[in-house]
């Protein structure tokens, strides 16, 4: 894992188009693979049941092997808060996700792993997915500062919320050390709360 001081300015690599709305984290990482005390090897079980049911599933498709940019549709990662889902994707090699929308928890879980989740409109995502399906080797670049995603000569405008964008640009996308910075202030807030100090 990268340290939280590494700025992430852009992500480049091949794409993996994964069509469908409301792909929940139970589908990304079925619960039986959560029976473990580490995140190791989770990448092997991404979409395991969907892949078994559908030999043509993009994660079965050798043309997309080694992809770094996942392209999804609406409400990706809804449902369970399991970090095992973005952990599996990150361990597989996914470094950025471009999609129509995400569940909040998934979005946040991905961000702290250094995986920005860009959003763009339906038409743009469809064009990007279609381009990758036609030419899987197309190099893709997602630029954090501008939100511009290019795939060969295709250029779409995507975006990140400003605070998240800035966090990636400054390398402060993993907040733990910041949260530990001023523990005296944390104590003060705690002591002010009547349920902590005693009613």
């Amino acid at each position, binding site marked *: 894992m990268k340290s939280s001081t590494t700025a992430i300015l852009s992500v480049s690599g091949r794409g993996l188009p994964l069509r469908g709305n409301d792909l929940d984290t139970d589908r990304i990482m079925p619960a039986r693979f959560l029976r473990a005390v*580490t995140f190791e090897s989770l990448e092997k079980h991404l979409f395991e049941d969907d892949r078994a049911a559908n030999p043509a599933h993009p994660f079965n498709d050798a043309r997309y092997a080694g992809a770094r940019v996942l392209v999804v549709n*609406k409400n990706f990662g809804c449902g369970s*808060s399991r970090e095992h889902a973005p952990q599996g994707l990150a361990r597989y090699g996914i470094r950025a996700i471009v999609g129509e929308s995400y569940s909040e928890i998934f979005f*946040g*879980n991905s961000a702290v792993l250094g995986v920005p989740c860009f959003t763009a409109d339906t038409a743009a995502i469809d064009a990007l997915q279609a381009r990758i399906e036609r030419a899987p080797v197309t190099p893709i670049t997602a630029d954090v500062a501008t939100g511009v995603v290019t795939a060969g000569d295709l250029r779409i405008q995507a975006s990140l*919320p400003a605070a998240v964008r800035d966090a990636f640009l400054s390398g402060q996308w993993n907040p733990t050390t910041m949260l530990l910075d001023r523990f005296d202030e944390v104590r003060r807030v705690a002591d002010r709360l009547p349920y902590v100090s005693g009613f």
Partner: protein
Amino acid sequence: MHTLFHKVWDAHAVRILPSGQTQLFVGLHLVHEVTSPQAFDMLRQQGWRVAFPERTFATVDHIVPTKVQTRPFLDVMAEEMMVALERNCREYGISLWSLGEGREHQGIVHVIGPELGLTQPGMTIACGDSHTSTHGALGAIAFGIGTSQVRDVLASQCLALDPLKVRRIDVNGTLAPGVFAKDVILTIIRRLGVQGGVGFAYEYGGTTLDSMTIDERMTICNMSIEGGARVGYVNPDETTFRFLRGRTFAPSGAAFDRAAAWWRQIASDADARYDDRVTIDSSSIEPTVTWGINPGQSVGIGERIAASADEEALTFMGFERGAKVEGTRIDVAFIGSCTNGRLSDLEEAAKIVRGRRVASHVKALVVPGSQAVRTAAEAKGLHEIFSKAGFEWRGAGCSMCLAMNPDKLEGRQVCASSSNRNFKGRQGSPTGRTLLMSPAMVAAAAVSGEVVDVRHMLQEVPV
């Protein structure tokens, strides 16, 4: 003119981080065996302590078998996770309600928090589980978080978050007999969409919510996340205070009254401003069942599946457009989970089951949400009603809500379930099918062998 959400947020805000997010103090951190071992390992690697072990409580729920609970578990992975949590709690000084000794408080994390009075109005709560929104029923702001955030809360008792918008959902009217909180929340999700709540906290109110018990409010808040809202809550009121009085971790004596005064003023002001408002008439809500693969895909029991229904969901579930869910043969009936595994849920189901038999082709189980629920239900003789009817009476845990313990669907089985998710594969078989409904509807389906309108059974007098 402020909402409870904003008041609680402001009271817990430590500072604005350089990233622009707010550092928010977490008043109560609940931990379970599935999403915590990696967090503790990260802590250990960094040499960090748990900042507020006295504000951190752990239980085991997801992986515990509900039938044979002797240790070591038959499932070596489950045993390893138990051992890891036990060791982590010991090492970091965290209270743990495990199996065995002290088991009287063990149960699903979202059932035991309120039950013990740990969950209180005006608190911020975090837990590595998306259904943490449940605790909002008592007027807390409760966030489901991922494992990296579990690490953050362990280490700093804080989260880095962006504020949410607040959508007020007024539910007005009187629920018809046979219609429950579950039907209300399924209706809300259907109406606003599984994604409608992204970026919002849902504040539930209106006359229907006002007259609901805390158990019912928990069912509603629990499924906020299924509507995309990370947080759901109900303003604390006299019902809340009555619920909390006398609970193990609630303030007692004069301190309780001082607490109630604080709880009253933390509630949303009458003139609070909301980012959005929605009103729902609850008197027209029917018993509701899902037909699809997300909790927004539901119909009233008398309704037909719309012509515009999603193709993937229809194919997976084996339903036709224009069909009714009523009459669907079921294989399994599951009563339990953090949505509907509390005493009142078991009582409603028992009313239907009493004097009847589970259909011969149906496997039916009742899994109390906690050991305390189980004990209370047994004191009322509910276990006998269920057992006599052919239900299995189990130990507390998540059981068939998700597939991390021995309770699972097989093949294409159809399960009438009182849980909260009908995602593909959720109940353990990649092709298994889940129909979400209220516990009373599950009970009715169990004895009928197919999905039926529980309202018909309320009138029948079984012999």
